[in-house]
């Protein structure tokens, strides 16, 4: 394990930014969701990396957190995609910039 912790974190930051850029720049709601999943995964990677490089690997905190995070991500994806489908049915589009009925 010679790879420095920083490299993992940089990888995580990269993934986060890519996901963020996609979520901000693409119009398709599904792609926005994918971007958000990427961001979530980047956070998970951070947890794992810090667990691996942390002083108390036997405590498994990071691993547990990521396991729960994955489970919650599954729920999030299911509900999110169901919402996209429902919106598409209602509005005949799933492009986020067309969906601005909730403005102040």
């Amino acid at each position: 394990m010679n790879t420095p912790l920083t490299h993992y974190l940089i990888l995580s930051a990269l993934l986060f930014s890519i996901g963020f850029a996609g979520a901000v720049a693409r119009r398709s709601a599904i792609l926005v969701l994918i971007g958000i999943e990427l961001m979530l995964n980047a956070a998970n990677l951070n947890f794992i990396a810090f667990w691996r490089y942390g002083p108390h690997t036997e405590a498994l905190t990071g691993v547990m957190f990521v396991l729960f995070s994955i489970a919650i991500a599954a729920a999030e994806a299911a509900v999110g995609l169901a919402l996209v489908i429902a919106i598409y049915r209602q509005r005949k589009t799933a492009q986020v910039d067309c969906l601005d009925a909730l403005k102040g």
Partner: protein
Amino acid sequence: MVMPNEIAFYLIAAFTVAFAVAAMTLRRLVHCALCAAAAFAGLAMIYLKLDAEFVGFAQLLVYVGAIAILIVFAVLLTRGDEVRPGHSQSSPSWMAGVAVAVLVLAGMAMALLLSPSLQRPAPSAAVAPVKKIGEELMTRYVLPLEMVGVLLTGALLGAVVIAMREESEVKRPARWPAPRRAEPGEAINLR
């Protein structure tokens, strides 16, 4: 000297980042979804490299086996959205968005590189044995586990209810549904 282990890491990292970028930039949504699945798989490999075996497999099972499929289904169910002529794939203010993303990346990278406390070696051995994970789930994390169970059930029902067609939309044919004729000019849009 660069160890094969490290080469493996950089290869996987490059693979992951490349597919992530592809997932966010390709035009066709199905391609995006497939690339995202590949990126998730790459991340799973990184977890394996970090000795988090269980998490890696769980990542593979959940992301590649379930979420990618879900995304693909959603893409197919919202098919009409993609092929509007003269319609850009990126939102009008995408440049501002990407700029902010770059800003975020820069900020994080700076924070990471400048931080002295991150310069530490890894403990030589770290294992997350399945048995221990199971024990922890059943003892210390039993309440979160139960709550995740409830959450998943709720999400399942919620997703079904949200995506289900409303009663008025389902037209039950008296006997057999008449085959729907394609409108003239309605190509088979599979993309």
